């Protein structure tokens, strides 16, 4: 035993990893904030977005597993990544930021973290309905968090955003004025507008059109494209590539094309496209898609436009929406304007809604958000709509429905194209009970109305509710 106690002395003091950090106190709060932001980009732009994009008519599954996935052939395992992105990659790290921000009086980081938390819980509620909130991210105190009902999570998201807005307005020490924040460099005004637009987004999701209109007002939400919350990307594979680009061009070329509903909706060559006397979508079509294929496919009707000069020699100004360097929209002026348009229309304010729509069309008519090369080389036209365009027989009301319904339909259709490739597009389809008639796969009665709870949570938490892929989340059970 004497020898044995000697043994301990010989081995003590080597139980800590020599090259990895085990003491978080050496890491700056701002580093955790940006770490969480990387996770947030992943959650909004990564693999689930492509999956529901195939269901939403934005993309098509062309090879291997993507054929099955596009035909709704999914299991819980397909959602492990998104769930972990939200709870582990974002929320675990924002929690660290929050716990420190109070001590450090860094209310800016606190506010930003709260906006990100709202975006995470809001996204989880959108996709899954009931999700852990009140007991989430409390390991080891709570190992099986309960699932809070979707409405209470949406409520909590609004409270988080209110709190964030207050914190962003709180004076912080000068040292925090510059921030590693990858979206706005710590600009509290920009974050406040994002927070308001998010409030509007989540009010819209629960059909609270009055509040959605209030928070998407130009005085509250993002009132200019320069205030867009965009995920920045760059030319380094496995580090900062646009995730669509990484997938379609480097990781799994040929898996995902765009033989789908969305490109046909905006392709002037298609007889029933939405192009009309006042609208030419050709530039936007080419920015989003590559008609005729020829990038990662030998030939296909459409494929995601992944052009970027360094890989394709496409020239400056021709970066596609899915190009390696192209920033990905997370919360935008465009969305804010369309929330306002929809919310006003749904509350009966036809004129206000039309003004909002035309405000956006004016922006598009001046070159919009697409790369300059497409604007220069292709037709692009977005003349203002008049109220008469929505009267029965007008160019936006061929089937003779009530004007206000025709306007709502046009706003939803514009949202569908504007929010192309974003999760909000899929949210809209479910929220509006597929108002646009996005094609449903043969053999299925509806589009998938939610994501399945991930296998990783099912394996470890007895509180996971039992639901099916075609069960609507509670917020979407009432008619649109």
């Amino acid at each position, binding site marked *: 035993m004497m020898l044995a106690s000697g043994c301990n002395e010989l081995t003590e003091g080597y139980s800590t990893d020599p090259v990895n950090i085990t003491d978080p106190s050496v890491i700056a709060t701002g*580093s955790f904030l940006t770490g969480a932001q990387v996770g947030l980009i992943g959650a909004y732009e990564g693999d689930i977005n492509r999956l529901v994009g195939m269901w939403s008519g934005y993309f098509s599954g062309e090879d291997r597993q993507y054929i099955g996935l596009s035909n709704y052939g999914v299991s819980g395992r397909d959602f492990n990544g998104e769930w972990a992105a939200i*709870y582990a990659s974002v929320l675990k790290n924002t929690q660290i930021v929050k716990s420190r921000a109070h001590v450090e009086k860094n209310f800016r980081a606190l506010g930003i973290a709260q906006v990100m938390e709202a975006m995470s819980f809001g996204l989880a509620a959108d996709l899954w309905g009931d999700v852990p909130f009140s007991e989430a991210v409390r390991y080891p105190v709570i190992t099986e968090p309960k699932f809070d009902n979707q409405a209470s999570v949406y409520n909590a998201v609004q409270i988080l955003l209110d709190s964030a807005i207050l914190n962003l307005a709180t004076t912080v020490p000068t040292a925090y004025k510059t921030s590693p924040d990858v979206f706005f460099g710590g600009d509290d005004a920009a974050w406040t507008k994002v927070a308001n637009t998010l409030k509007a987004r989540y009010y819209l999701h629960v059909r609270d059109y009055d509040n959605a209109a209030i928070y998407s007002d130009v005085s509250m939400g993002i009132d200019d494209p320069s205030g867009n919350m965009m995920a920045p990307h760059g030319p380094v594979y*496995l580090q900062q590539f646009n995730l669509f680009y990484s997938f379609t061009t480097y990781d799994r070329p040929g898996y995902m094309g765009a033989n789908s509903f969305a490109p046909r909706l905006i392709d002037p060559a298609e007889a029933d496209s939405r192009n009309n006397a006042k609208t030419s979508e050709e530039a936007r079509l080419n920015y989003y898609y590559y008609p005729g294929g020829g990038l990662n496919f030998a030939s296909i009707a459409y494929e995601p436009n992944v052009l970027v000069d360094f890989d394709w020699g496409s020239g400056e100004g021709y970066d596609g929406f899915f190009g390696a360097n192209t920033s990905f929209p997370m919360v935008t002026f465009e969305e804010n304007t369309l929330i306002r348009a929809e919310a006003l229309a749904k509350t009966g304010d036809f004129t206000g809604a039309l003004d909002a729509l035309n405000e956006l069309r004016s922006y598009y008519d001046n070159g919009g958000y697409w790369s300059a090369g497409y604007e220069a080389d292709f037709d692009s036209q977005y003349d203002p709509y008049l109220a008469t365009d929505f009267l029965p027989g007008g160019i936006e009301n061929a089937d003779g429905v009530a004007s206000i319904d025709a306007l709502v339909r046009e706003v939803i259709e514009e949202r569908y194209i504007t929010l192309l490739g974003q999760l909000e597009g899929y949210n809209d389809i479910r929220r509006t009970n597929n108002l646009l008639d996005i094609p449903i796969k043969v053999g299925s009665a509806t589009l998938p109305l939610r994501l399945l709870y991930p296998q990783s949570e099912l394996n470890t938490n007895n509180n996971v509710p039992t639901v099916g892929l075609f069960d609507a989340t509670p917020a979407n059970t009432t008619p649109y």
Partner: protein
Amino acid sequence: MMKKILLCAVVFISFLQGVQAQQRTVSGKVTALDDGTTLPGVNVVVKGTANGTVTDANGGYTISFSEPNAVLVFSFVGMETKEVAVSSNATVDVQLGMDVTQLNEVVVNAMGDVVPKDRLGSAPSTVSGTAIISSGETGILNGLAGKAPGLNLTRNGGDPGAGSYIQIRGQSTINGSVQPLIVIDGMPMFNTFQDNGNQVDGVQQQSRLNDLNPEDIASVEVIKSASAAALWGSRAANGVIVITTKKGMNSKGKINVSYSGTLSFDQVNKVPELQRTFGQGGDGAYVYNTPRSWGDKISERSGGQDTYITSGAGYTGYTQFADGTQRYRISQKNSTETYDHGKEAFQTGHFLENNISLSGGNERSNIFASYSNLNQEGIVMNNSNYKRNTARVNASTMLTDRIQLAANMSFSGVSSNRIQQGSNLGGIFLGGLRTPPDFDNSFTEGTYFNAEGVPTLNKQVSFRNTNGSAGNSGFDNPLWTINHNKNTSTVNRVLGNIELNYELTDWLTLKGNVGVDSYSDRQTEFVNAQSAILPGGAYTEQVITEAQWNTNLYATGKKRFSDTFGGSLVVGFNYNNRQFNQTGAQGVGFIVPDAPPNFGNTDPNNRIPFNLATTIKTAASFADLNVDFANQVFINLTGRAESSSTFGPEAKSLFLYPSASVAWQFTQLMANKSLLNFGKFRVSYGVVGRQPDPYLNKTLYNTTSFVEAWGGTLTGGQYNGGYSVSTTVGNPVIRPERKHEVEGGFDLRFLQDRVSVSATAFYNKTTDVILPVNVSPSTGYANTVANAASIENKGLEFVVEPTWVKTSSGFTWSTSFMWSNYRNKVLSLSGAESVFLSGGGFSDGSSRAVEGKPLGVLWGTYYDQREDGSYVLDENGFPKLAPGEGVIGNPNPQYRMSIGNTLRFKGLSLYALFDMQAGGQMWNGTRGALVNYGTAKSTDQETTISANDAATIKTFDGSTIADAGRATQNGDGTYTFRGTVGNYGGGQVALDQAWYTATGGGFNVNGPFVEKANWSRLREVTLSYAFNGASFRSATRLQGITIGITGRNLALWTPYSGIDPETNLTGANNGRGIDYFQNPNTKSILFKLTITY
């Protein structure tokens, strides 16, 4: 070889009666029957007297005696004892054969000490160095295959230098290594399998044990029993393999020189079968650049040159090849030529090994030195090789009458180059086996001129980029890959120990053994800028170093209290320090594509450095008590108290590993031993363990790396330096795994050792198995590591070794029959449905731990079946996939058996080893993929059905055969289509392209591609002849020349449809039974020449 070890053991203790000259003197020479080498140290005694001598360094002896009818008795431990009547001869030369049953055999225990086997309470398996060398394998590991019962070896593949997986008595852990501890000359050594986390792609990695020169090995003991291994405590959970290297012997100053040379020729032994009937395309028609081979029937083409698009619509330029030919985009396939893509990248590989050793000594000192050089070209045509240089010096000397100092030191330099395999767009087989049979891969590159005539030099062409016009090859052309991608490894290693032995008194000995094992492995991976692995190219260079220091100090006391009662006690201390470092960098995207590998040739943003370091310190004290009663009962008790650095300060860190064993030689009580001349019962119990991997106790915080499911990655480094908490939460109270084992058995020898029988049964249970445990991700972490599982193994092992024939003329025929079976079961996984094993394969198509099932079961998607076995069908009568995943197969064999036969007559010897595995399955993911691609042999079937059937039988896409557009209508109205008609219980359905590219193919379902993987093989046949007669020796002044020819894997019988099933994609990892485009195994013919001087 055995005799040399035995000699080492006895050389210091056997001695030496005085010789008294009498009336007659006889002299002669004693040599070994099997290889003609001289035998020093043989006891020569005049029968019935104490008059004797021992042979000198040259095996010579002279003895004087007075008895009229003297009979000389020649005896030597481990060899048969021979009595020769002198009569009137003045010279008596004697050849001693090996005692095949090895009477009084000694073995080396876990601590490296020599002990008599007949007194052991457990049954280690011994493989002699000779047996390893004769196998003709370049690495020690593969040379052990089939030569020890219950030792399950699986090669990583047939690439040169590829390592092997070793399994002793079933897998008993889930998360950690299942590889046994290797102890060489008392010193633990690394047998690292460095896969860089690259488990389903990359190259076939080496096992570091193979750095040793097999010719330096005297013997290998496979210690399976926990009781025998318990002295290594927490490193012995997977058993211990104890290697003893050759030592010099008392040759009275003469130097023995031995040279051996081996030349081997190696070929692929089995490749997957491919169809050569249908060409590239889909729906029965040629499609340009399409990945699949569901095109037209090649034999129905017109023949001749394909129709090219050389201008106008669809013109995409052309590639000009070195031979002057050009290839344009094809508009119509006319050529009927087909190609064998299974073997096109392979050649007859070969290696040449030269080995020279010197040994000698006198009464006080001895030395052994060797040098070997191995130079191997692999079966892959280029950039596949293995070169090994080793040097060794083992020396020992008596500093005083009581102090012996010994040192063993070896150096290895190993360099290799390998081609990638597996799930890898640049692997040989992935691109090769998917290539349509009508595509010629031999044109690999040329100058591509685009439609505007702009040239691109050295453009790769492949079947998905037939004329060079696409940006990317899709899958690399295998014949391009082998000339453009390189994966090198350069290992330099020093391994050695120094041992001081001080015989303090007659009964007390002190021993100290200090050793070091240190190597560096510099690995590079060069991916050409045009490779599909990573368009733009990448260069990775890393240096992996491992070093361990090991110190054993112990005191051995021996005391005999009476003739029938004695014992020994060892008390000791062990300290071990292991360090691992990995430092390297990757540069991605070459600025100048064809430049030499240089990180400067990449954008600074594209350079990723990495480093890793671990230190593990283990300290233990141990005791080993042996007691014997009445020369028939032997009791052994051991205990080890161990502490290790891998536990955090909050955890208990001192653990005890006890063992006990009893052996009873019951035949000591028997008077009549004519039938059964030796019998022993043995029973033992022991506890061994496995340390947790280091640093599991704390949660890590790393620079953010967001990796989405399909590979896309965002890193904190590019986003203002983001850091994140790891998704794996630390476990501050992690404990070691503990394996408890009971074992019983008997060893019997009949008819004066002509037949020996050994049987062992064991049961073991591993508790506290360390497991990555899922944590509800909504808690903010994804997993932790905990002591959460338990596993049991039970098994039977038999060895029967009869000597069928043994004539006075020197002819012997002996057989070694070995049989073992193991049953493994995962008792508990703490509720986890399944646990993915390290190296478990793919998320779909994997090897896992599942509660209640054998460890390593195959797991994946399968067709949904009801309880009565009927399939759940879709509306067209095709089976539907089950919603989840489940167990689809079991890679664990039912039993393993080997039969080795040895025939000898004078210098001629023939050995044949037949080896088999019964049961066991593999997931043939290769076939699954090839069915989808339409290149698998099974997809070349055609079926003709009536017009009526064609109008009713449904295809998977909901059409009928007649309407699907893939069938041709014959003159008589019948339809012929590519595929078969199946029936899953809902009526006839057409299994054609629509089915195989969807739910019927391997990308959608795993279950149907699990195959039986039992095999039998003629693993080894060796024929050798030794020239060592007296006239030969006097004519050549040599002691002997042996020539031999060996065949490896000459015959293989298996129902498995893929490559040799003795393989695993993920190499020596814990996952088993995964086949996905790994490089194939080999069969070999070797020629060997040995000269001893």
